[in-house]
Structure formats: structure tokens, C-alpha cells
């Protein structure tokens, strides 16, 4: 049982370390990347604790969707102009 306890300790401390690093990252991008890694580690934790349904859902959402959502939002928050369907762009200002 002792090696499994080592695995448990590694998973739990890894989750804490990833959360800490993600919150203290210098750039937003690093923070997002570390959060995606935390989602992957959470998948392993759910698998370890017998929550197999949750592990599958977290593998799909944590690995695929959340990262894509955050990266898309970062891209749009960084771009210089708003030129789409946001209400601001619909105002009838003539440039």
C-alpha cells in the first residue's frame, strides 16, 4: 500500500502546486496553460478515487473545451479593435 500512498501524495501535492503556480503566473497565458494541466491532473485524481464517470467528463471538458474557450477569449481580449456583433459595433457611428 505504500507505493500507492506515494502516488496519492504526488497527485495531491501536484494539484496544490499547479493551482499555486497558475494563480501566481507572470503572464495570463502561463496561467491558462497551467490551469489546463491542473484539469488533466484532476482527471487522474478522479480516476484514482473511483469516480470514473467524472473522469471521462473531466477528460473531455478539462482537456478539450475549457482550454479552447480560454484561449479564444484571450485572443479576442487582445485584439486591437472590436469589429463584430458586440452592441458597440452596431451603433450607427460613421467612420
Amino acid at each position, binding site marked *: 500500500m505504500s507505493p500507492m500512498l506515494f502516488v496519492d501524495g504526488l497527485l495531491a501535492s501536484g494539484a496544490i502546486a499547479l493551482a499555486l503556480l497558475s494563480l*501566481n503566473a*507572470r*503572464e*495570463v497565458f502561463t496561467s491558462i496553460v497551467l490551469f489546463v494541466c491542473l484539469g488533466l491532473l484532476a482527471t487522474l485524481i478522479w480516476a484514482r478515487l473511483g469516480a*470514473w*464517470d467524472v*473522469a*471521462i*467528463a473531466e477528460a*473531455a*471538458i478539462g482537456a*478539450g*473545451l475549457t482550454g*479552447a*474557450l480560454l484561449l*479564444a*477569449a484571450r*485572443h*479576442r*481580449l487582445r485584439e486591437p479593435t472590436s*469589429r*463584430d*456583433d458586440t452592441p458597440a459595433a*452596431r451603433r450607427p457611428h460613421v467612420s
Partner: protein
Amino acid sequence: MFREMSPSFTDTHASTLPRVARVLVASVITAGGAALLLATLRTDKAPPELAVLVSEQLATSGVENPVTAVLLNFRSYDTLLEIAVLLIVAIAMQPHASSQPRIVAPSTNNESATNLVLTSLLRWLIPLSVLVGGYLLWTGAYAPGGAFQAGAVLAAAGVALALTERYQFGWQSAGAQWLISAGLAIFIATGIVSGMVTGTFLQYPVTYAATLILVVEIAATVSIAAILLQLFTRLARADVTSPHTSGASS
């Protein structure tokens, strides 16, 4: 120009709080967190009464996977309201009205769609994801899997499709509205029909429980996948909104 905007959108410093406030917040949260930690570690574990109850009643639920039984039979109110929450989010992010008849239409912006690596990756990835989604939906009755997992995998396949920028999604079309609302509508209809038979809303008759759960699960999968995909395409601007936007995102 960016300096005039609120710090929520600029990545210049990690925190705008003054140092005193940060130390204060950190100490309060450390104290609260330590109290929570202590309480968690010192509380004795509750006996697994609910788990025993679920495993006793599992035979009447119509499925063999206990999590699916809890989600779609024993506590189906939770799932119903959860799909309602998803629908509300989808409605909040609905695009403005426009006359786009189809859900998926080829984009006019084909410039970036010629990326050979991306195209050949997704040519394998998307059909396999759809296959795995269907498999997870079917297997959810007797093994881990089910509507949420299948919906998430299908939505991820759609996200991959949207990332090619080869297609645009017309979420305001009638077909898309049906896809988005089918889950809640069929769930409520099933609840009402089973309620007329058994007398209680959402209480399935034991003999038909498996069929009803499968119907609800398929509808929920489709809606969850459509809603999650809509959220992404709205955020990534891969949807059709107005004539000006097509091609503007390259």
C-alpha cells in the same frame, strides 16, 4: 489607448490591490482555509447510507450504471434544472437575428483552410470523436459514460470543426434552435407523460424506465453538445452574425 481601459483587460500587473489589502486578504483566507482544513480532517466520515440506498434500488431504475441511475432517474430534477441552466446560458449568448438558413455553412474565408497538417489531423479526429461520443452515450446505461460525457465529446468534435474556420455556424436558424431546446423539451415531456402514468412528475414506471432514460439521454446529449458548441463559436466568432463578419477573423 489601452491604458485608458480598465485593468481587467490589461496584462500589466498581476494585482491592482494595494499591498496592505493583499496581505489582509491573504491572512483572512489563510485563517479561514486552515479552519476549513481542520474541520475537514477532524470530521468523521458519514456512513454511506445513500450509496446503500442506490445499490438497493438500482434494479428498479432501468439502468445498471449507478451514476446514470442517480442522474436520470433518482435525482432527475437536478439534471432537468441543469439542462435548463444550460439553455438559459445559450439563450443569453444568442446572436442577433439574421437570415441564415442552415446550421453549418461553408465559410467564405477559405484561406486558412488549406493547412495540410490541420486538415489531415481533423479528418481523423472528428469522425473518431463522433464515434466515441455515440459509444459513450450507448455505454452509459451499464458502464461509466452517459449524456454529459457524450455531449462534451461531440461538442469538442464541433469545436475542432469550428477551429478549421472552414465552416460557419448559423445558430439563429430554426434547426439550431430545435437542437438547443430539444433536450429540455423532451425531458419535460417525458416527465409529464410518466407523471400521468405514475402520478408523480418525473417518476418513471419501472417497466419503461430503460426506454424513457435512453430517450431523455439522447435528447440531452444532442442539446448539451449543441449548446457547448454554440458557446465556443460565439466566443471564437466562428458563427454567422452579419454580412460584414465573414472573413473578418483571418
